[in-house]
């Protein structure tokens, strides 16, 4: 398959660009967009190596070398934000990765088509809730007095529980499990799609040999999913350092900051937040440090995935 592909691309004759001028005209606007909004910000990363002042501008500001990075590495926040980012991310992977797979395998076994359809629609719904509303729902439902959590606790024990959002211990669990609630259905779509392509004759043959449904899940369905699972896991591992800013930021408060401050929120806090220092250079250095590690991870992971797919195919 792979060989075939390369030989096909190898024989494609590239056309004279002058004949395709209209095609390049199509590309003009997207190119301008990508250069202006993606590559210029990359070029602006130089301010991480400068002492940026608005008046002097990006190019007029003084060079300071790695001073901003060193400042970040030496600050007491450094290990804290790294640790928080990695822990939160790994926790999310460990919990949120297997569940969609299990769900897909289970839904695949359901024989009542109507129930299957309805179940699929319902579990996908939360995916469309915006981050702001999601966090709003979490706050409301888990409120220790007026939320479901507080009411249930009161009903069972007669007293009100501690405020979950004031305790740093609860932050990671709330963050990860609300994410699971919101996305496990959506994330299982890709596995459900892969399962529909399993040849039914495998199942028929196994059935004739007397294999139970459970056995068929383990010996037919799961192996069929394996390539997808590996690809998805590798992709997911590549994004360990990139915790989305939005949800963490919305769930952050002064009481849980010790566990909820991640690299991206720290970058924002230094540079733009009203209680930050407004130090654009330091903030950019923090962000750049994150992007570079992230980039390295993606490259490594891609290398691994190529290796894996080469050995696993044929």
């Amino acid at each position: 398959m792979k060989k075939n592909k390369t030989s096909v691309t190898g024989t494609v004759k590239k056309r004279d660009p002058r004949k395709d001028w209209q095609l390049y005209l199509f590309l003009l606007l997207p190119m301008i967009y990508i250069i202006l909004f993606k590559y210029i910000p990359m070029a602006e990363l130089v301010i991480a190596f400068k002492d940026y002042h608005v008046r002097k501008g990006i190019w007029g500001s003084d060079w300071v070398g790695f001073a901003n990075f060193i400042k970040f590495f030496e600050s007491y926040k450094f290990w804290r934000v790294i640790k928080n980012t990695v822990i939160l991310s790994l926790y999310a992977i460990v919990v949120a990765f297997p569940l969609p797979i299990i769900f897909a395998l289970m839904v695949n076994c359901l024989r009542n088509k109507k129930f299957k359809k309805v179940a699929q629609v319902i579990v996908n719904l939360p995916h469309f809730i915006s981050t702001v509303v999601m966090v709003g729902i979490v706050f409301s439902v888990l409120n220790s007095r007026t939320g479901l959590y507080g009411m249930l606790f009161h009903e069972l024990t007669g007293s009100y529980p501690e405020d979950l959002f004031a305790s740093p211990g609860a932050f990671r669990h709330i963050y990860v499990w609300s994410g699971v609630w919101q996305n496990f259905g959506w994330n299982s779509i890709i596995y459900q799609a892969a399962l529909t392509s399993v040849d039914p004759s495998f199942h028929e043959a196994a059935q004739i040999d007397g294999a139970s449904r459970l056995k068929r899940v383990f010996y037919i369905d799961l192996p069929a999913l394996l390539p997808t699972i590996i690809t998805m896991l590798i992709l997911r591992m590549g994004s360990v350092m990139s915790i989305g800013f939005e949800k963490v930021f919305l769930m952050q408060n002064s009481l849980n900051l010790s566990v909820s401050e991640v690299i991206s929120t720290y970058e924002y806090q230094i540079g733009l937040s009203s209680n930050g220092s407004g130090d654009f250079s330091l903030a950019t250095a923090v962000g750049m440090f994150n992007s570079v590690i992230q980039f390295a991870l993606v490259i490594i992971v891609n290398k691994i995935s190529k290796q894996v797919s080469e050995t696993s195919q044929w």
Partner: protein
Amino acid sequence: MKTKQKNSQDRVFYLVSYFISVVLVLIVLYPIIYVLSSSVSDADAVAQGKVWLVPVNFTLDAYKRVLAYNKVWTGYGNTIIYTVSGTLINLAITLMCAYPLARKNLRWRGTIMLIFSFTMMFGGGIIPNYILIRELGMLNTRWSIIIPGAMSVYNMIVCRTFIETNIAEEMQEACQIDGCDDFQFFFKMVLPLSKAIIAVLALWYAVDHWNSYFNAFLYLKDSDKYPLQIILREILIQSEGMKGSDDTLAEDMANSQNLYLTLKYAVIVVSTLPLFCVYPFVQKYFQEGVMVGSVKG
């Protein structure tokens, strides 16, 4: 004998998988129903913990309050503006980019693809983007919401893959012989034949616009340009800490803590309902899109 045993084993298995599926569906459904019921219940009943599943003392008070609140209306209007114009721009740029790159014999195709896909792996980050928007004079303008996200490279690749696999090169060659140039081919053949992917992309982009708050949060100062999500943030999240702004909602908060509780639920419903109502009808497109995306590798 053996088959009987097998059948009963299977029966247990099916029973268990139905049971777990039903439980999962209920876990997803329950908070949604709870929010919905609370939003139409009497505020005091909600505060006293009397609402568990069905509304108690049905009332639309909270909705009346929410709809009387001007900011919600302007937010809604702004979000519609951003969603519609943003999605149209997204579609135009994405298609303009995907169409030429779907041609295998385009000179420099690999290089151009690399230029685009590199931005998926590396980027400037929050501060450089902010500086750029400021230098462009887009701070506190509606453009800052629409333009910086004019195209998602991932979506462009999905679209390119679709065009590549669904519109045969032979077709383009045949048209060329008939004297059709690349513009005509795009408008007369590619666009009509790409309806399915255009629908998927439109939905993806529109949902993103509807739900996004980050750019608005960073770049907008005037509250009359705020999209709904920023207003929601004020009502749902910031309220915990700050209750002192100078509008009718703040008054409501201060006057009646309980009413404010149901008001939050009503706001959640008002903002999310449109997507929930549309979704079941378009879900098959969404799923198709996920699959088109997954075969790109």
